[in-house]
């Protein structure tokens, strides 16, 4: 997969967390996802269409989701409720929107966010579209951003 399709999402994640979550996440080495992929507890999903198709997914363990959302909204949250899922969806939306600016030549459209909650769930992506997982660590814990993208 072309790095220029992945790097905007890495940059956008660092920028979003630094600006709105008060922590600068450190990216690990990206790797190509091999199905069935990693297990997560809370995932925010944005669909991509237009000049590119696929999805961007930000996934957290529950504890990291809670501490991240607490910092994001400025209020301590202790359970994964509607506020947390809304906030995770909004984080996914902001990251995808910021990345889209770097992909402006492609005329990518982004969907409204969807959020999946469930202990150790897996998010399947289309088999015909390559998917790269970028692991991050920050003061709130570890999380991943998965970029599943192909030009149309």
């Amino acid at each position, binding site marked *: 997969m072309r790095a220029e399709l992945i790097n905007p999402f890495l940059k956008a994640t660092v*920028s*979003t967390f630094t*600006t*709105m979550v008060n922590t600068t996440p450190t990216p690990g080495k990206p790797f190509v996802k091999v199905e069935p992929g990693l297990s997560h507890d809370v995932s925010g999903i944005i669909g991509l269409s237009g000049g590119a198709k696929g999805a961007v997914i930000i996934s957290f363990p529950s504890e990291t989701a809670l501490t991240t*959302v607490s910092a*994001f*909204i*400025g*209020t301590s949250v202790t359970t994964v409720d*509607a*506020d947390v899922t*809304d*906030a995770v*969806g*909004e984080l996914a*939306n*902001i990251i*995808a*929107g*910021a990345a*889209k*600016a770097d992909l*402006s030549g492609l005329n990518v459209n*982004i969907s*409204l966010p969807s959020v999946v909650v469930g202990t150790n769930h897996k998010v399947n992506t289309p088999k015909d579209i390559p998917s790269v997982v970028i692991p991050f660590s920050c003061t709130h814990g570890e999380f991943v951003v998965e970029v599943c993208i192909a030009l149309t």
Partner: protein
Amino acid sequence: MKILLVDDSNTMRRIQRNTLSGLGFTDVDEAEDGADAVAKVQAGNYDLVLMDWNMPNMTGIEALKAIRANAQTAAVPVIMVTSESEKTRILEAIQSGATNYIVKPFTPDVLREKLAALGK
């Protein structure tokens, strides 16, 4: 100053409300989509609208155009607050009558600067 916050995300409305409160603006109402925003702007005397772009039912840009098309509300300042950060989108918003534009992610300082630019 009476402000209307428009965003389908409860999280973003909460963050912006807290930010505005920190800047001394506490007379703040909320709308969950563009249609709700247009109705509230027509019914109330708002000094400023902070408008998201991507929302269900009616998008922010559609709501902005509706507000500008109504003589009664045409002069209400509307700042787009959105993750739509491409230059073409910003240009589209300005051409549709947006007073200013804030790209998410943003810091409280950015909101303060945009309000100052409005003389608020």
